[in-house]
């Protein structure tokens, strides 16, 4: 168990992040800079390419995240749709990138797109993902090496 009281701002000076008492991970010289995103709407790009949008409520040094009012955003050509998911806890290893959403830019961007039916978009996006996944695992067969270090050879 980490003793949070041991950490202080002085150990954290290189990060130039504000110290907020009672927030786990704050002041730990890990993902400490995420503190600025707390209670803001953030977009998370996961390692598998999915986009999750939600309000960041908590995090820790591994960048495990707790998101509220979460939705997954599906994008297909010039259509998009959101699937509400509620509260989401993302294990840090699956996070590739996260950032704050610029509302102005987002609105401008979404206005160029059409909303689509969730079921249909989800189905097509999932199929596409399956296809790329299959392609990724489509690697050449392993070369079998035989080492004759046995007494019989």
């Amino acid at each position, binding site marked *: 168990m980490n003793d949070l009281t041991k950490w202080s701002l002085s150990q954290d000076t290189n990060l130039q992040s504000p110290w907020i008492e009672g927030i786990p991970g704050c002041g730990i010289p890990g993902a400490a800079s995420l503190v600025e995103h707390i209670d803001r709407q953030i977009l998370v790009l996961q390692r598998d390419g999915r986009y999750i949008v939600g309000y960041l409520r908590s995090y820790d040094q591994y960048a495990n995240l707790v998101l509220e009012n979460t939705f997954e955003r599906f994008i297909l050509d010039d259509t998009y749709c959101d699937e509400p998911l509620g509260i989401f806890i993302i294990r840090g290893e699956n996070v590739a990138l*996260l950032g704050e959403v610029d509302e102005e830019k987002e609105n401008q961007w979404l206005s160029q797109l059409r909303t689509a039916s969730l079921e249909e978009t989800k189905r097509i996006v999932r199929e596409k993902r399956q296809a790329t996944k299959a392609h990724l695992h489509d690697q050449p067969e392993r070369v079998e090496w035989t080492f004759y270090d046995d007494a019989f050879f």
Partner: protein
Amino acid sequence: MLFFSFFKTFIGKTVTVELKNDVIIRGKVHSVDQYLNIKLEDIEILNIESCPQLMTLKNSFIRGSVIRYIQVYAIDVDCEMLQEAARREYKELKKVAK
């Protein structure tokens, strides 16, 4: 710890980060931490067609484990100093080993 210190010298400088999922991001380094997670400001996605959604971000936190390359401008790097620091660290390690 050498690379942590090294990357700290890039704070405020512009770098280009390529991720393992082929996203390429250019931005100003805001902060770096011990896992080499990097926070960029004023970001620009160089291959926007592969991930149009990221266009809407104004800053981004990149987890160190997904970074493939970091491209920096040569003018920002003092290779001699880096080499010297590497030698120093090696010497110190040897001292500890004895």
